[in-house]
């Protein structure tokens, strides 16, 4: 998964591992490579330069020695000839001199010619010539007398210098008429005279120098380098630029170029001392090294020039090869690093993608198959294990959640069922103005163990009860349902509260394997007189608030909690409620409601609130009490169910004496049989609480059941939920109105008259019930208004 580089992260760290590995490898290795190549370049350059300089100096020296080696023997030969003549004091037969000359020419191929030139005055009388000269004439030997009368040879350098310097002298090299370079070496001959040693003449030897060029050309001075030879005057004897040989000197070139430095270099070169300098060639302007070495024979200087460019090219070639090898190595290294990096980052990348998929919730995402046993493989395996654990956990969680949801749903249903178990229609009977009653039940969980109940035994007697089952939750709720069931049936059998409780206790204790129990308070209120009979099975003492502002806790009589032991007996108590007196039944969830610091709500606070609220109706009072409890708890979780029932006896006012005329019951019945059953129950409750004709409960029940059953069964061809409205007025005369939005149906016309004589099974369904309704009802009126069937029935 690609992440944008972190803000402020150094650039190099913002990339993938592979890129970073590659960049670092290339960067560091490249730097090392560059450093190595540069270092090598520098050291190699220095070494090669030093070598080149040494080579220049060495070659100059070696060449000088080589030239000396060739010139030396010839020099020796001339000296030898001079010494011979000198030793003989020129008293040599001329033929012998000539033989010596010819022998020299034969033995020394480098010698072109040799002469013995004497001052004419000192010529031995026996000699025909003063200056015999033998020379090479192609393959033969030629002869000539150099003295032809004008004595001009006396002015030649080879004669005059040897005479003037009184030593062997190398002439300036010259070009022979054939173009061949030559040099003449001459040695003075001295003869002893009375005045001392006397100059008599010279022995000379003309030497071919063509081998010099070949020798210098063979010097290994690189492609551009060259050797040169110059005289003591700086004149070039040998130089790669042929035009300047024997015509120019280093000084004439320096003059032509106006180069003082070249002149100085020339002066150093002809100074007779060897040297080695950095030099820029005048011939091509390239930097070079110039080494020179004076000869030991002739006073010439051998020079060698090695060009730095040559060396530079060599160094560059070496460095380039090195760099190429290094670069190839770098490429290999990068490839290797890339492969390694890929072997790491690919699984990591795949793992990362897989992890992202995991994180997105897809726990079935495939993980890359771990390869090998490296850290990545371990990481992959660990991821796999994690995923599997997560998978299991999620499966468990899903299961648990499903179970919990199911339980929650069931609990919600149970809650609704439990709430349906207690009457919730207030006011209980709107027509009655002699009482006010309201009740509240708030289970701590979905379902609770508390319940309250009230019902009329007849028009005058009202039963109120409150109970608290031990334990909480579903067991308590179930036990509560059972208790309520037993409680109602107990009162159908005997209206005495004590005996009813005893019966309930007995019924509950039978088969009470789970050893549950219930505290229960119940009272039978005689509305007309205000007398109250009550019994208490271990329940909290109800609070009696007198109309004049006094509170009493109805603590006695007080029995044990029901269902503990069979055969328990409960004593019935009695008290009288004046008009305006209020009775509050409650469970311990009220007085033991705790705030965040575990302080109880308390009976004093309850009593005080009740006193303060004496002007409020029961509904308002209980709502206020619930609000106060909520304020007390201040958000703390309540552990116990809170259940309250409040009854107040009201004074009957005169204008309401004929309240029966207005007594009516309004029912809204859903179009199913369960709704009908519930409606019938309410009808029963209502009819029990009103004074009516003795036959009314029976007739009203039958009419309602028959007609509504008919509507539910046939009125709605669709499967939708509809509401059937029923209004029952006690009268007199008692009337009932039924309205439904089903199919138009006039029971008076559309229903066939049943054949009463026919066999029961063969009769059309519903026909009989309707017949009975028609028979029993005083009158029936049907009309259809705006899609609604309305049936008005006078119940007689």
């Amino acid at each position, binding site marked *: 998964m690609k992440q944008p580089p972190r803000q402020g992260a150094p650039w190099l760290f913002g990339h993938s591992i592979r890129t970073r590995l590659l960049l670092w490898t290339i960067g560091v290795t490249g730097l090392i490579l560059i450093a190595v190549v540069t270092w090598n370049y520098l050291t190699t350059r220095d070494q090669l330069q030093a070598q080149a300089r040494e080579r220049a100096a060495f070659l100059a020296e070696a060449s000088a020695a080589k030239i000396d080696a060739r010139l030396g023997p010839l020099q020796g030969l001339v000296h030898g000839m001079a010494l011979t003549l000198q030793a003989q004091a020129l008293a040599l037969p001329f033929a012998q001199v000539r033989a010596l000359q010819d022998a020299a020419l034969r033995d020394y191929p480098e010698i072109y*010619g040799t*002469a013995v030139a004497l001052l004419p005055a000192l010529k031995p009388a026996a000699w025909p010539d003063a200056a015999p*000269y033998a*020379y090479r004439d192609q393959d033969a030997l*030629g002869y*000539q*007398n*150099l003295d*032809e009368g*004008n004595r*001009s*040879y*006396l*002015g*030649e*350098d*080879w*004669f*005059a*210098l040897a005479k*003037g*310097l009184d030593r062997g*002298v190398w*002439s*300036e*090299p*010259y*070009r*022979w*008429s054939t173009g061949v370079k*030559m040099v*003449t070496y001459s040695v003075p001959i001295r003869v002893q005279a009375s005045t001392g040693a006397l100059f008599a003449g010279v022995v*000379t030897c*003309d030497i071919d120098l063509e081998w010099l060029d070949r020798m210098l050309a063979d010097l290994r001075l690189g492609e551009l380098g060259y050797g040169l030879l110059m005289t*003591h*005057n*700086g004149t070039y004897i040998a130089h790669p630029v042929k035009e300047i040989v*024997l*015509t*120019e*000197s*280093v*000084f*004439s070139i320096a*003059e*032509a170029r106006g180069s003082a430095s070249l*002149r100085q270099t*020339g*002066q150093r070169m*002809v100074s007779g001392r060897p040297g080695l300098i950095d030099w820029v060639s005048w011939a091509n302007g390239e930097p070079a090294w110039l080494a020179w070495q004076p000869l030991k024979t002739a006073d010439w200087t051998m020079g060698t020039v090695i060009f730095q460019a040559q060396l530079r090219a060599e160094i560059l070639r070496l460095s380039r090869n090195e760099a190429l090898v290094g670069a190839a190595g770098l490429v290999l290294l990068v490839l290797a690093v890339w492969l390694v990096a890929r072997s790491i980052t690919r699984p990591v990348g795949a793992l990362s993608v897989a992890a992202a998929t995991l994180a997105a919730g897809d726990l079935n995402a495939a993980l890359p198959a771990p390869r090998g046993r490296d850290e990545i493989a371990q990481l992959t395996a660990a991821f796999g294990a994690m995923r599997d654990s997560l998978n299991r956990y999620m499966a468990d969680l899903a299961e648990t959640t499903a179970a919990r949801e199911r339980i929650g749903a069931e609990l919600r249903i149970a809650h609704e069922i439990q709430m349906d178990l207690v009457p919730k229609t207030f006011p209980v009977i709107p027509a009655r103005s002699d009482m006010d009653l309201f009740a509240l039940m708030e289970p701590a969980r979905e379902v609770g163990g508390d319940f309250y109940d009230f019902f009329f035994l007849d028009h005058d007697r009202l039963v109120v009860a409150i109970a608290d089952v031990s334990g909480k939750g579903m067991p308590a709720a179930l036990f509560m349902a059972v208790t309520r069931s037993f409680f109602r049936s107990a009162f159908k059998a005997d209206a005495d509260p004590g005996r009813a409780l005893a019966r309930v206790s007995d019924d509950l204790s039978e088969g009470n394997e789970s050893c549950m129990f219930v505290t229960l308070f119940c009272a039978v209120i005689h509305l007309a007189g205000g007398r109250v009979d009550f019994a208490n099975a271990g329940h909290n003492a109800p609070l009696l608030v007198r109309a004049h502002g006094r509170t009493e806790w109805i603590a006695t009589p007080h029995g044990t909690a029901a269902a503990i032991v069979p055969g328990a007996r409960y004593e019935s108590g009695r008290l009288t409620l004046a008009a305006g007196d209020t009775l509050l039944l409650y469970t311990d969830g009220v007085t033991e409601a705790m705030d965040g610091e575990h302080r109880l709500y308390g009976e004093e606070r309850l009593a005080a609130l009740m006193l303060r609220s004496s002007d409020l109706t029961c509904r308002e009072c209980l709502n206020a009490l619930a609000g106060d409890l909520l304020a007390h708890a201040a958000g703390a979780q309540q552990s116990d169910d809170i259940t309250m029932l409040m009854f107040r006896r009201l004074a009957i006012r005169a204008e309401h004496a004929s309240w029966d005329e207005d007594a009516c019951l309004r029912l809204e019945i859903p179009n199913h049989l369960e709704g009908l059953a519930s409606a019938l129950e309410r009808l029963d409750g209502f009819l029990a609480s009103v004074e009516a004709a003795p036959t009314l409960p029976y007739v009203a029940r039958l009419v309602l059941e028959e007609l509504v059953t008919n509507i539910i069964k046939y009125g709605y061809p669709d499967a939708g939920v509809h509401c059937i409205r029923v209004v029952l007025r006690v009268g007199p005369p008692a009337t009932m109105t039924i309205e439904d939005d089903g199919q138009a149906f006039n029971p008076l016309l559309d229903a066939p008259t049943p054949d009463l004589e026919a066999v029961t099974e063969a009769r059309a369904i519903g026909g009989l019930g309707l017949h009975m309704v028609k028979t029993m009802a005083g009158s029936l009126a049907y009309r259809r208004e705006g899609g609604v069937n309305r049936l008005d029935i006078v119940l007689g």
Partner: protein
Amino acid sequence: MMFERGGVPLAAAWRHRVSLSAILAVVLLVAVRSAIAQAFAPAASPPALPASGAPAAVVRLALQWQPQSQFAGFYLARDKGLYRAAGLDLRLLHASVAQSSLDLLRTGSADLATLFLTDAIIAARPPADGAGRSEIVQVMQLVQRSNLMLLGWKETGVSQAADLDGKRVSYWQGGFSSAFQAFFAANAVRPEPVPQYASVNLFLNHGVAACAAMEYNEYHRIWQAGIDSERITVFRMRDYGLGFPEDGLYTTLAWASRNPEGVRAVRAATLAGWDYARAHPEEALDAVLAEARRAGLAANRPHERWMLSHILDSIFVPGTAPTAMGRLDRNTFASAVLALRSAGLLDQAPEFADFAPFEGEAP
């Protein structure tokens, strides 16, 4: 300058005597052929032929030495057709060790020759019997001032004239020796004289403490051998009042008598050639180097440039009237004669009018 040799061995010169003659013949042949070619090539024809329309007369002029800038004006006068324009078919000959220009003139190999004034005076001295006139007459005096000098090694202890006393000093024999001897006498020194020939190598090898030199030639040769001026002490003869005019053009009395107009024409054209060289020194150098190359001589341009510049300064002496060009001053002639006499080189001097019969005419 007559002594520039480049070290060609005398031995070789002798051996190839026959060959030299052959070469000379070839040179002559080439010269004739080129003259013919010039005659028939309209483009090369001089703009002004002689009015007579007669074929140009062949005139042979011998120069003192082998090709160098000393003769640049002659080469240009020839190459630029100035001689031809004057109706002259002039051919330049070069002297050698074997034959001096005077030799060539005397033997009739040349009609005209360049000579140093002092040598010419000696050569022009009347016969000892006093009968007749000098054989040699001057056509014009080219080099007006002396370039003669003595150079001494400072490192040998020569820093003033007195230091020459007792030291080996080489100088040329012949006409020049008079100036040096006068110099020694004037400075009261007695050096050991050593004959000086073509080269200064004896001096360069420290064989002598001082040597003779021409400012335009040897002085620069020595510098071109790597010897800086600081190492040398220079004595210019002219600084000591001992310098005489040098190169001049001479002919025989016989030829001059036969061709007085030719003499004038040569004189005018030669001066014009030198004027041209002065105006175009690089072209003059090209001509000199080409001439040297043809003669197979070693020559380098810096040296020839130095020589040309000094020769030109000696012909066209700064501060001298243009009319003096090519002319010989009577007083100068007289002092040269005096100097030669004091040196014992001359017994009887020619008369000025005999020596320079054309002097007084407009050059």
